[in-house]
């Protein structure tokens, strides 16, 4: 049986993990490679690296970092942040990333999704969608959630499926940072609207929140950052809990 995936997300700035990491036993907790290795040992099913480096100049180090990560870990990983062209994607895929994630650049130029799918295959193309409820309608936001677009979320996910996206990373801006749980309604609606794997993100604060999203929606993965980085919910504890709830989880 296909397992539900637990996916830690690492925000990278200038080649370092940000969001204050607080692991004991890491030589350098800010080193994404060290942190990635730790998550692999703990049983993470995949990893997502989001580059939030502001300047183009410093972003050139991204490919080097991806190369180091690829050499060090033996599970799949996605790289996103600032991928605006097939060339950008090619650099990180060549360096060893399994998938690339596009967000604002896809809204700006939807053809990018089709171009990426044609060049690398749909399985390489994750479309990250930031959604927020605006007067009762879920709308797509870009530029780190700052700018509202004209797209209704359900229309946008259907559009990217048509264009050849292989997976959707759905972040509810309303849930993000609240630790009040994944937003079930929109996650369920998106998962029902398309025939693609959905990674739910934004709002995870407890182990029950993961159980909720996996039992009440068709989401195939749950992504979180700080609860893993700060050690609030160790991955083995989470997986053990989900297994006890009879949710299919990779164990060992």
């Amino acid at each position, binding site marked *: *049986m*296909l*397992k539900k*995936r637990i996916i830690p997300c690492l925000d990278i700035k200038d080649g370092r993990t940000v969001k204050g990491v607080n692991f004991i036993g890491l030589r350098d907790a800010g080193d994404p490679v060290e942190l990635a290795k730790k998550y*692999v040992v703990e049983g993470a*099913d995949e990893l997502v690296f989001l580059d939030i480096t502001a300047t183009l100049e410093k972003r050139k180090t991204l490919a080097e970092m991806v190369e180091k990560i*690829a*050499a060090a870990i*033996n*599970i*799949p990983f996605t790289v996103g942040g600032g991928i605006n062209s097939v060339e950008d994607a090619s650099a990180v*895929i*060549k*360096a*060893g990333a*399994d998938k690339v994630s596009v967000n604002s650049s896809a809204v700006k130029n939807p053809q990018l999704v089709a171009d990426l799918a044609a060049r*690398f*295959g*749909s*399985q*390489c193309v994750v479309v990250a969608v930031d959604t927020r409820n605006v007067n009762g309608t879920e709308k797509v936001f870009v530029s780190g959630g700052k700018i509202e677009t004209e797209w209704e979320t359900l229309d946008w996910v259907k559009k990217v499926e048509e264009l050849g996206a*292989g*997976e959707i990373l759905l972040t509810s801006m309303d849930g993000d940072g609240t630790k009040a749980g994944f937003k079930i309604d929109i996650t369920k609606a998106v998962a029902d609207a398309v*025939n*693609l*794997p959905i990674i739910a993100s934004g709002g995870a604060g407890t182990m029950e929140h993961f159980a909720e999203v996996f039992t009440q929606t*068709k989401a*195939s*993965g749950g992504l979180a950052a700080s609860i893993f980085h700060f050690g609030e919910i160790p991955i083995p504890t989470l997986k053990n809990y989900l297994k006890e709830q009879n949710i299919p989880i*990779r*164990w*060992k």
Partner: protein
Amino acid sequence: MIAIIKYNAGNVKSVYNAVTRLGYEAVITDDFETLQNADKVIFPGVGEASSAMTYLKEKGLDEVIKNLKQPTLGICLGQQLMCAFSEEGNTDCLGIFPIQVKLFPSTEIVPHMGWNTIYDLKTPLFNGIEENSDIYYVHSFYCENSEYTIASTNYILEYSAALNKDNFYATQFHPEKSAGIGEQILKNFLSLKT
């Protein structure tokens, strides 16, 4: 020396990384002689069947791969290209395994992406691997179960997780991305007797 076939498909580097992590010397190459003289050959790949076959034929690699005598492992697209025909782009493939590659019916989420179990494990490729171990998949096309099946998986329907015929082995899953279990499977392949 382990030779990894260089062609127009992605993910070749991940396989190289996995093999070298296990302590083997590996080379990514499309040189005929290097391929023919390697201890083991790995035919990896993430990509699209028809463009991959066109490329292999242009380079003459199709004939080289078919005639390899040492243990050879196809991974994912590599496995599918080793079959006779793929529905992806209606492509005639290498025909090492005389079976068809089919598109999943889209009654469920496609691609099949994530960790799933393998069972009915046969051959030394799975030495030390427990039944129902989880390994990593990402694919939209599959090989039906046949006399060449040496492991099965169920997603939408039951199909071949791995194949074997003579010196040719193939996995639909990605051992290079399947954590410790995948590492063991790769190690098993690399220790097969030549």
